[in-house]
């Protein structure tokens, strides 16, 4: 590594591009001098500083695959959030903040892995899993993989169009409102749903709010999945 900047140092990030994903979420492409790449599933810390010196810090998962160049983060605006509204509503090309990272050595997946993978997302928990799926597609991997996404309604599903061609079976469940003519699941992820849809016996990645992650993990263990094969990442507020 030629850069003398450690991944742990704060460094400037500039918004190179911003694109809406859903009415409540946006993906930002970042220019980060000295960026040395990342692994699928990793996250960065971001830090915003106001003119009066006030600072706020959050963590966001990297949505882009490692081989896709500049890192991209997808941010979902949280009700009454302090930082996420800035990213989704205010941020524009050229804006600057600070990033630190990438971090994460556990909730990561490399295409060199051979086990089947089951990916389970609650809302914006899909972001790091998307990085894994994009990486899998880029690598031409044939590893069996499947994605289960729980979202409130169709408008909340990140990357909806890209998921149609991402190369894996995608199962959606809507917890608040389903599209007209929807014949799929319309409830929170439960044991029966997992039994019907999940690839078991490989490695499972679950990401989303804490309650979602723990409920799903408990169900999988009850279905006989060894806890050591379940990797979780819990998301907080913003």
């Amino acid at each position, binding site marked *: 590594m030629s850069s003398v900047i450690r991944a742990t140092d704060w460094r*400037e990030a500039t918004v190179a591009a911003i694109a809406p994903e859903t009415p409540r979420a946006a993906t930002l492409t970042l220019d980060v001098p000295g960026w040395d790449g990342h692994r699928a599933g990793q996250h960065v810390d971001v830090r*915003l*500083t*106001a*003119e*009066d010196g*006030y600072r*706020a810090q959050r963590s966001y998962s990297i949505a882009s695959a490692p081989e896709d160049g500049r890192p991209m983060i997808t941010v979902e605006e949280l009700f009454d959030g*302090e*930082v996420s509204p*800035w990213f989704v509503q*205010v*941020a*524009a090309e050229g*804006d*600057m*903040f*600070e990033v630190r990272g990438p971090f994460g050595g556990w909730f990561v997946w490399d295409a060199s892995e051979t086990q089947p993978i089951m990916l389970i997302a609650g809302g914006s928990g899909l972001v790091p899993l998307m990085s894994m799926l994009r990486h899998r597609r880029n690598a031409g991997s044939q590893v069996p993989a499947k994605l289960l996404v729980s979202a409130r309604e169709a408008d909340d599903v990140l990357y909806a169009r890209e998921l149609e061609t991402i190369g894996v079976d995608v199962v959606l469940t809507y917890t608040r409102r389903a599209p007209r003519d929807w014949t799929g699941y319309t409830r929170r992820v439960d044991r029966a749903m997992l039994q019907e849809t999940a690839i078991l016996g490989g490695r499972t990645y679950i990401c989303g709010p804490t309650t979602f992650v723990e409920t799903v993990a408990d169900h999988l263990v009850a279905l006989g999945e060894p806890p050591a094969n379940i990797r979780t990442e819990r998301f907080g507020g913003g």
Partner: protein
Amino acid sequence: MPVTRGFNRRRETTPGDRLPPGQYLERGFPVLSAGPTPETPLDEWTFRITGAVDAEREWTWEEFQALEKETPTVDIHCVTTWSKFDTTWEGVSVDTLLDGVEPLGGYVTAFSDGGYTTNLPLEDLTGGRAWVVYGFDGEALEPEHGGPARLLVPHLYFWKSAKWVRGLYFMESDDPGFWETLGYHDRGDPWLEQRYQGD
């Protein structure tokens, strides 16, 4: 360090002399915890006065409920900079709990379910300045806010108001508690901004 265009703190500081230095007024009631919410059944709950005292005391929940109640309305100040004005509580004054108790030490550690502790000088618990409360805003104190009962010492930073409190342990010398061993102040007066040791 770049300033981020268009980013501002969401909160507003209120001018006036009710807000200690460095604080802002919060409309909600943030729930921050160092661990999981304990769930002690009321029929197992006791409150104890123990340690360097002439005689230890203990009350069951029923006995505690029978003690003289007070309903203080106070401002509270968290060291993480949020403050709330005019919070209303119901509980027992520490003066009532210490009535007839002879302390043999000038320092106290409040101890809680889940292992949390906080230390403070005895004099900050007396003179009508501290309570063990089981009601907030006219209702039973919720577990996430420290129920069934928490310490309330509003003239000090709110980490001294130990949630899930189960007793007061008296000591002859000060012994830093959970946050104090990590650098927070042994007393914690928000008007003197005693946030960290040495402040």
